[in-house]
């Protein structure tokens, strides 16, 4: 198939057509009366398109060329270019892979027969979201970029509010809508300033702008706010946990695995414009990144909702990626190419890794919610017995996301660590090395969060009657998860290849890394990592064989768990999700907050009473919401203009345009 495509088509055209096919895949389903076939057609179309799109993107990535297409349009914003350079091609990979896997998962997870009312819309907007993200990566005209960006943001909104009859879902949708449009406002500013700077709406080429030019700082700030809000960098993350938690799981997978990366892509792209970014930019990105990582994972530890925990860990991972980008930028400013290479390699590889293990975990959470009927981890337990395959695949995802060897999460964090350490011998930027202990702390907290998640969901005994009889997920749900798990294992086993995958994207954005022999040098170190992985595996095999041999010699019996003398243990005595993280939460009190309501017990035989603890979202509850309600009160006089009459709204638009026209004259 690969050679056939290579011979017959231009890969850029293939990628473009694949993106359009994904966008149209949900349309046939809208016209079928019988449920089901539309969903299958959409999945088949998306998977086929992805099977064409992935090799095309890989070819574009490795050919080091840039393909340009021109769309003829009559809008007064200059030519509408479609360009795929290696950086776009690299970001296209997760778009195709994750959206195809998610559409297959949807067949088992959101079957049309059971969800007649919502399935059509869900399938349609899902395709639209995936397609808009792919086209976004190719768009080079600022106005067209914003249009596609809005299609992406709005289709994500419609996907989040799929279950709009629930109050929580509607609230999550509104918070998301406000956050994304705040970002869009920043993007309007961004593209206007950029157009004022360059004289056209076309995005400038890499290294063509100076950071000393008058608008540069404002452009960078607008990009950070606009794109950062989409990526979920703290403090712009408030929409993220509830939106990811309340969307259907395969949608959460796409949003977390891919849509957040579109925000990061915007930041990457913007930074490549400037050939002389000041140190301050890199420093701001690094500090915001490492803060997001630390606070994100700290929030994750405190969560009791399965998907909210995963969403908070997305903030952590975006933070790690941003840190890498910040380090690379510091390298650009101070002309240290090794920092540029390692920071970019770590950040880009972590983007790829996160778009494999996070969808794996979100899809797994979908299977879990199907089986247990709840998202509350304190009510689960023992699911591993009923759904061993999901449990195994989920374990792969959990180990990967903690950044533990020999899986893929470790590889990208390892590159970042090398970057932090690399300036230790040099005189400048030596303080970067203080990021290493912080990242180590983040890794330690990730282990707390994910042992909590895995332990309370899959291990032990069921804590509620719903969780007592789980059923294994069907093949359409297992296959995408297995595929992601395989990718995680593959990158962990042969990190050399992964490094080769990111190198062209780095080279196209920062040509100064071309002179040094970094790919060879760090490729060799990656080879050592894969050797260590092999050693680890063989050590485990030897121990297993030894144990097997001893087990064969001596009898093995089974008995109930040792209750330390207590005979009447129940499953509710087990350490639950909240009790597991209670110690960590108390140690990191202040970073993670938990609202605990404990009853006052008096007397020898106190009455039955209740105790509850809820993780709080400090920023949203204490700062943003009061700020919003204050703004609302300040601007309450504007309410008079809003009365729900469509024709008057249209009059407003006309009047605004007319006034603008008068002003222009």
């Amino acid at each position, binding site marked *: 198939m690969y050679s056939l495509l290579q011979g017959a088509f231009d890969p850029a055209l293939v990628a473009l057509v694949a993106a359009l096919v994904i966008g149209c895949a949900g349309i046939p389903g809208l016209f079928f009366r019988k449920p089901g076939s539309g969903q299958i057609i959409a999945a088949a179309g998306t998977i086929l398109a992805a099977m064409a799109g992935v090799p095309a993107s890989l070819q574009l990535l490795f050919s080091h060329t840039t393909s340009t297409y021109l769309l003829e349009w009559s809008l007064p914003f200059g030519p509408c270019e479609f360009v795929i350079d290696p950086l776009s091609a690299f970001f296209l990979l997760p778009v195709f892979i994750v959206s195809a896997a998610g559409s297959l998962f949807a067949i088992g997870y959101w079957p049309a027969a059971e969800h007649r009312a919502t399935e059509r819309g869900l399938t349609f907007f899902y395709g639209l979201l995936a397609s808009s993200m792919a086209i976004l990566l190719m768009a080079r005209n600022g106005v067209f970029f914003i249009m596609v960006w809005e299609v992406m943001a709005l289709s994500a909104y419609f996907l989040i509010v799929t279950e709009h009859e629930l109050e929580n879902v509607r609230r999550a949708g509104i918070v998301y809508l406000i956050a994304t449009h705040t970002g869009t406002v920043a993007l309007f500013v961004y593209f206007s300033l950029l157009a004022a700077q360059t004289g056209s709406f076309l995005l400038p080429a890499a290294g063509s702008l100076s950071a000393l030019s008058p608008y540069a700082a404002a452009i960078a700030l607008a990009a950070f706010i606009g794109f950062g809000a989409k990526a979920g960098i703290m403090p712009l993350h408030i929409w993220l946990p509830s939106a990811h938690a309340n969307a259907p799981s395969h949608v959460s997978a796409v949003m977390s695995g891919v849509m957040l990366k579109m925000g990061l892509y915007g930041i990457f792209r913007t930074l490549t414009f400037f050939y002389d970014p000041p140190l301050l930019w890199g420093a701001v990105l690094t500090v915001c990144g490492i803060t997001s990582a630390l606070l994100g994972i700290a929030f994750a530890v405190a969560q009791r909702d399965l998907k909210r925990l995963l969403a908070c860990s997305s903030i952590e991972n975006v933070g790690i990626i941003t840190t890498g980008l910040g380090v690379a930028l510091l390298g650009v400013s101070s002309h240290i190419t090794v920092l540029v290479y390692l920071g970019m390699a770590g950040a880009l590889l972590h983007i790829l890794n996160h778009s494999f293990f996070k969808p794996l975990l979100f899809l797994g959470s979908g299977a879990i919610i199907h089986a247990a009927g709840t998202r509350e981890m304190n009510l689960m337990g023992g699911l591993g017995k009923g759904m061993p395959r999901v449990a195994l695949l989920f374990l792969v995802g959990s*180990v990967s996301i903690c950044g533990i060897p020999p899986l893929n999460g470790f590889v990208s964090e390892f590159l970042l660590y*090398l970057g932090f*350490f690399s300036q230790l011998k040099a005189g400048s930027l030596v303080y970067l090395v203080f990021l290493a202990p912080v990242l180590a702390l983040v*890794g330690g907290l990730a282990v707390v969060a994910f042992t909590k998640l895995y*332990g309370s969901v899959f291990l032990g005994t069921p804590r509620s009657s719903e969780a007592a009889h789980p059923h294994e997920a069907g093949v359409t749900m297992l296959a995408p998860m297995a595929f992601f798990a395989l990718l995680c294992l593959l990158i962990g086993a042969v990190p050399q290849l992964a490094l080769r995958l990111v190198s062209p994207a780095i080279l196209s954005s920062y040509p100064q890394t071309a002179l040094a022999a970094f790919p060879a040098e760090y490729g060799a170190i990656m080879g050592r990592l894969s050797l260590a992985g092999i050693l680890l595996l063989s050590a485990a095999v030897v*121990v297993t064989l030894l144990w097997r041999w001893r087990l064969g010699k001596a009898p*093995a019996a089974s008995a109930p768990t040792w209750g330390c003398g207590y005979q009447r243990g129940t499953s509710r005595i*087990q350490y639950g999700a909240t009790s*597991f993280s209670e110690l960590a939460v108390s140690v990191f009190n202040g970073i993670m907050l938990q609202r605990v309501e404990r009853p006052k017990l008096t007397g020898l035989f106190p009455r039955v009473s209740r105790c509850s603890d809820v993780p709080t979202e400090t920023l949203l509850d204490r700062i943003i919401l009061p700020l919003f309600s204050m703004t609302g009160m300040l601007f309450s006089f504007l309410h008079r203009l809003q009365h729900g009459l469509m024709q008057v709204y249209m009059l407003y638009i006309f009047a605004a345009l007319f006034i603008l026209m008068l002003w222009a004259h």
Partner: protein
Amino acid sequence: MMNGIIHIFLAIVMPPLLLGVIGKTKAAFAGRVGAPFLQPYHDIIRLLQKGSVFSTTTSWVFRAGPIVALATAAVAALLIPFGAHPSPISFDGDMILYAYLFALGRFFTMAAALDTGSSFEGMGSAREATYSCLAEPTLFFALITLSKLAGSYSLSGMLVNISFGVWLNNGAALLLLVGGMFIVLLAENCRIPFDDPTTHLELTMIHEVMVLDHSGPALAIIQYAAALKLFVLGAFFVHLALPYATGNSVLDWGLFIISMLELAVVIGVVESAMARLRLIRVPQLLVAAAILAAFSTLLVIR
């Protein structure tokens, strides 16, 4: 080649001896004769010959715990240099692999504990998760300081290059580091004052309570893995605190063995002289260790 074989041989054979020496030291302090030095070997062999009891609650995760714990400690043993001899495997950045290997072992040990569905074991793994997460930054500060002092990004490079000369020039930084790392050594290996392996009250345990349900060969593997972890982290510490080197290969091996035994005696003395801390004090001490190590980093990179 010969050095590599000796390295692997020592890593396989010597770890339980440290436990024996610690036990003997504690017995001497208590005025007892104590168990023989080789008692831990007998224990492990005896456990290997016993039958197993598996809880009906457990799944394969429970069995994976001991296996992964031992495998990770074994690979870590290949990364760390023993005495003046570089390790068999060494590359730039291996110290990060070294630190993260323990995280892998911990992940599976904690998962195995949670798999039993026992509240005590859940308690133990919650403590292990929190405390080791607090110990992590200390190790990284130590790695930074050593890496800066030795000008190397690999464990062998940084540890073998620490000599008395380096001590003379950076005594303050290394002293702070020795303090911080000793606390981490005790905490990571569940020794007094953090955890008491010999206590009989499950409520106060950390590591021992996580392995309550492991029996027979599984317990043997766990005990051996714990000894190996003590050995591997101890080897790191010994480099730092007692950087003897003669230049003679055979003498250096001898010196390494002696310093490891000295370390075991010191741990035994600490265990005899101190009581276990209240659990609430443990995080405070770990944070203090991290700050000590951070100070030493500041001193060397200023």
